[in-house]
């Protein structure tokens, strides 16, 4: 049925692949933290400091329930197993010895003096069996399914720190991250690729000046560049604010005040992501462009006397396609770096939420944020895949040939 629509078929194939990848990422998100310690134990150690034993137990059970670590029946009640708990009771036994002392009296009759003496005190262990109802532990597999089910319900657990639902924390941070990273990565990609293509085409002085600079930019780690911007533009020269997404002293800002303050705070983090990304892209595009310049179709276009802008358009478009594939592959790395930039600027996005969670060992938040990052990266990848299929006639043609 789908054979008639190769593009649709391709997109649905990719969708299935990404969905499987998502499930695997989900499992990783579930299993990786369990390499270390039991999250509930960690939480209890943190939270249950001053609680009574009963309260602590209740809380622990509640947590285990909410993390899908224990089994629940259809009505939602905790399934309890009767577990025979074996307690060791230590019994103190005293062993007496009768000491008989024979003493002869003056008549020579033997008098027997009988006396009980404690010979020793023995500690004896006795095992006492005691039945108790204990919540049934879920197997790892069913824990995983519980986790997946909860994730699909949108339930990512609650923060250890303040008990807020993780989804709420994420929803607060997400708009900031999207507003910062999406334009910065997209524009950085476009800008870097344009520069790279131009350097490949022009060579000469432009290339010689741009190339080392772009190479240097691409080797500066995100956080180093971020800190340099903060230090010089924020602290030494005080051009821009160094932390936050908006001025907190504005108590009830109107729309315009909010936007202008947000824009002011936006400049440094944006450029720190944008420039580094552009550097890396320019390097990649330059080599791609030089490669494409050597191809026959560019030579032919020049022989035909096509306009320079047209040849450049050929070059850019065709070198861009592999760069687009490169974008799909490295978007995860870019987002990782951009998150660290958020941390440096205390920008109220996901990166900062994650940093806070890391410093306070707030595991559910860390896990929730990482899951969201993975999901968005996969979505971005999927989008790029579709774009490539739409933009590259070679892919299109090969798709329709496959289905013949």
């Amino acid at each position, binding site marked *: 049925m789908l054979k008639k629509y190769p593009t649709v078929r391709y997109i649905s194939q990719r969708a299935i*692949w990404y969905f499987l*990848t998502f499930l*695997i*990422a989900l499992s*990783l*998100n579930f299993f*990786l*933290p*369990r*390499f*270390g*310690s039991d*999250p509930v134990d960690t939480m209890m150690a943190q939270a249950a400091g001053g609680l009574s034993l009963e309260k602590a137990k209740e809380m622990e059970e509640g947590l285990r329930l909410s993390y899908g670590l224990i089994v629940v029946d259809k009505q939602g009640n905790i399934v309890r197993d009767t577990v025979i708990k074996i307690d060791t009771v230590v019994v103190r036994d005293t062993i007496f010895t009768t000491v008989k002392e024979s003493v002869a009296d003056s008549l020579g009759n033997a008098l027997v003096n009988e006396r009980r003496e404690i010979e020793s005190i023995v500690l004896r262990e006795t095992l006492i069996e005691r039945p108790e109802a204990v919540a049934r532990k879920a197997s790892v597999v069913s824990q995983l399914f519980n986790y997946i089910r909860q994730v699909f319900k949108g339930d990512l657990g609650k923060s250890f720190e303040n008990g807020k639902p993780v989804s709420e924390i994420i929803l607060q941070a997400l708009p900031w991250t999207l507003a910062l990273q999406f334009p910065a990565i997209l524009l950085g990609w476009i800008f870097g690729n344009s520069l790279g293509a131009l350097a490949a085409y022009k*060579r000469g002085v432009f290339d010689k000046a741009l190339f080392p600079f772009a*190479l*240097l930019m*691409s*080797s*500066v*780690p*995100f*956080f*180093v560049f971020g*800190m*340099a911007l*903060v*230090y010089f533009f924020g*602290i*030494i020269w005080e051009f821009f604010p*160094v932390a936050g997404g908006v001025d907190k002293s504005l108590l009830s800002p109107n729309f315009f005040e909010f936007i202008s303050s947000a824009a002011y705070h936006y400049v440094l983090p944006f450029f720190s992501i944008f420039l580094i990304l552009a550097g890396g892209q320019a*390097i990649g595009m330059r*080599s791609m462009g*030089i*490669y494409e310049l*050597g191809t026959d179709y560019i030579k032919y276009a020049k022989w035909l006397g096509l306009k320079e802008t047209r040849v450049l358009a050929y070059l850019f478009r065709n070198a861009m396609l592999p760069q687009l594939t490169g974008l*799909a*592959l490295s978007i*995860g*790395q870019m*987002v*990782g*770096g951009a*998150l*660290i930039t958020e*941390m*440096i600027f205390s920008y109220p996005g996901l990166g900062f939420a*994650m*940093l806070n969670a*890391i*410093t306070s*060992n707030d*595991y559910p938040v*860390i*896990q929730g944020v*990482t899951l969201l*990052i*993975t999901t968005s*990266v*996969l979505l971005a*990848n999927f989008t790029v895949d579709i774009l490539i299929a739409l933009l590259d006639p070679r892919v299109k043609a090969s798709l329709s040939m496959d289905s013949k």
Partner: protein
Amino acid sequence: MLKLLRNLIKEPMFVIGSFLFLTTILAGLLGPSLYTAHPDAIDSYVQPFKQYELESGKHIKYWLGTDDLGKDYVALLLRGLQNSLYVGFMAGIIATTIGTLVGLFAGFKGGIIDDVLTMFTNLFIVIPSFVVLVLVSASWPEGRSLTLIAILIGLTTWPWTARSVRAQAASLRGRDHISLARINGATNLQIIFKHILPYLASYVFMVFIMQVASGILSESAISMIGLGPVGEGSTSLGVILNIAKDQGALTDKKWWGIFPAAGVITVMVFALYLLNNSMEGVFNPRLRK
């Protein structure tokens, strides 16, 4: 080979890159024995973040000042450099070994094995390695050693090597000398090690260089956000930055807490990128012109 080397030496990028990188390696190896101050020695006389100290007529000079506790930054930097290099190389070796084996196997075998391995590789490429690093490191609050972090990085970055090696190996697969070897009854292993690997050696080396750079970067990134190595003597450049930032070195204008360490990381990575790019230029003549 000799000719390639001669061409490389003519390349300014290669000369600058190898000079910078050899300098950092030498500093990491020899530094601690030349600059004998102990990185963990705390000078309790100095105030937090002193640039240098002149005290009671005695000249105690810290070239790059001290950290918040009064530890000598030069000594810390040297140790950090050593540790960062260790992690970079270790991660690079792990990633290159796994990646090369997977890539060679997939590219050489082709068919279903290739499909499965490629899918596996792509899967781990799209799942951000940063996320995996954060998840594992965060759940490992104790005993996060340099080696553990290096292994983690290596285990998350190999797919990049595998991907590029696979492409190269696949292009070699159809070459005549491979078919000839096969006709002559060479086993797969023999073909891979005798006929494919030598062709890819320079390529694998270039990828290795990039993996070392990415190892150094990943380690400093993960340390920067407070998930770096813990334990005595495991201070890395990222850890220095993390501590300095937490102690407000940035906002207090204590530049020496941030920029020397940040600079060393950048120089190392830049040097490796230069090396890689210059080699690409020589091995791939089209880029020259």
